[in-house]
């Protein structure tokens, strides 16, 4: 498979993309936690 074809469109490597996705998951959990606590 062509290396260029394998590259993600941003963030240089797939590892960085995956880190972004997992970071986003943690951020979403945090936001939803704050949401849960804000309206009790």
């Amino acid at each position, binding site marked *: 498979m062509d290396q260029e074809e394998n590259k993600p469109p941003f963030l240089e490597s797939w590892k960085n993309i995956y880190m972004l996705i997992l970071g986003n998951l943690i951020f979403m959990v945090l936001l939803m936690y704050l949401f849960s606590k804000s309206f*009790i």
Partner: protein
Amino acid sequence: MNSLDLFILFSTLFGIVAYGVWKTRHSKGIEGYLKGDGTMKWGAIGLSVMATQASAITFISTPGQAYDSGMAFVQNYLGLPIALVIISAVFIPIYYKLKVFTAYEYLESRFDLKVRLLGAFLFLLQRGLAAGITIYAPAIIISTILDWNLTLTILLVGVLVIIYTYSGGTRAVSITQKHQMTVILIGMLAAFAMIVYYLSPYASFGEALSLAGALGKTEAIDLDFSFEKRYTVWSGLTGGLFLALSYFGTDQSQVQRYIGGKNITESRMGLMFNAVLKIPMQFLILLMGVMLYIFYVFYTPPLHFNEQTVAQIETSSKKDTFVEMKANFDQLLIDRKNAASNFVSKEGGEKALEEFKALDVKINENRDSFKNLVAEFDSSIKTKDSDYVFLTFILNYLPHGLIGLLIAVIFSAAMSSTSSELNSLASTTAIDFYKRVLNKNGSDKDFLKASKMLTLAWGVIAIIFAIIANNAENLIEAVNIIGSIFYGTILGIFLVAFFFKTVRGNAVFIAAILSEIIVLVCHTLNELEILNVSYLLYNVIGCGLTIILSLILQLFFKNEKI
């Protein structure tokens, strides 16, 4: 529904179907029919993956679920982004390298033919059963609420899906899903906006959330380690991960959506699109259900959301009890509305909030008493009414035109997931059984013809199954139970293939069969109430047993060649 609604509904449905057929009219060849000629970009793949997962049940049941139990269900999706990262990093490169049409082709290259056929057979069994429910579930609710003929409603969905899936294959499925998903997102956002708009004379968005929070309905994240709680962060991260890994990684209805990408990057980005957007989307659908609950604090809800059930009791021997119950319920609604208004206007303070909470408990006890009354009258009548909550709101409160659009949302969702199911069922039967076993030397033309005929055949089977299906108490649960019975074993086979290189065909084949038998025994014992195991655990049991038994059995097959 008036003529404007019907016009919007049918022009949306027929328009999308006609567009899908027209756009794919020049498609030919097995590669184009089953993989869409490898031309799909990440946006189309992402929407297609999302539309396949989001069935009509998602849009009917999820707001009703939040109406009943709040936002906690969103935690079930927490494992999904992790699963999609694993699939993107491990599964997709292998599928691309082997240029597979179906996920099960990989099992032959890794193990042998019998393991491939077993994986494909388990998929056909569970997806074939689920396809009927995917059509039946929205049809039973829509036909009840609109007083349409159930069989004709099933036929409407089934026949429309068969037309474009038969005609254009995978590309038609993806093209139509892009437009269906657009209709779905516009419709759901419009419904959400209308709820907030209707609430505005009584409570601001923030005040409505405070009322919902007081009733515990905004609790989206629960960090409790208790096993007794159905939805926690931990159950979502573990059980949700298993479910998502098996569904997105090994279920052909999903695999087929992303292996048809223009290249590996487009496929991966399509999955990452879902990894980012799926949780916010589910959050918003659940939040809509919670806002609907607060809407019905200020607007009068029915005692029970299934009008047919209420009508049966109104004309039965239980009529007097019902009238008394209804009068009590109506008074409680007035008191709860006053308490909520006092809290919102800051007149009543904490006292008004406590009164609001106490009255809400009494109202729900009243709703439960009605369900008990129904069960006393006729135990065969289904008492769960949460699936009717959202549709009741649509029909009673939304302006004409928007009603048509929202019913189109439900039908679009049903059609988008059904088309993926038929497409994948046909592909698996054509590639893993017909091409591999029955007609090894056939031409591309033969396989294309077979794939088209199999799409038609699976469509007819799904319609027949939908027509003869019995009303399941909880439709979303019925689909999940069927999936959970088979998913664990299929995932176990794939995980052994990816991560346990010493295990070979005979060991994993026997292990998978034994695991599936044990899962089926567990389910039977559960049904007979001898055992009490959550159906979500079937995934873990099936997967875990397949891996462990494979490793043990491999010790007895030491001399087997790869």
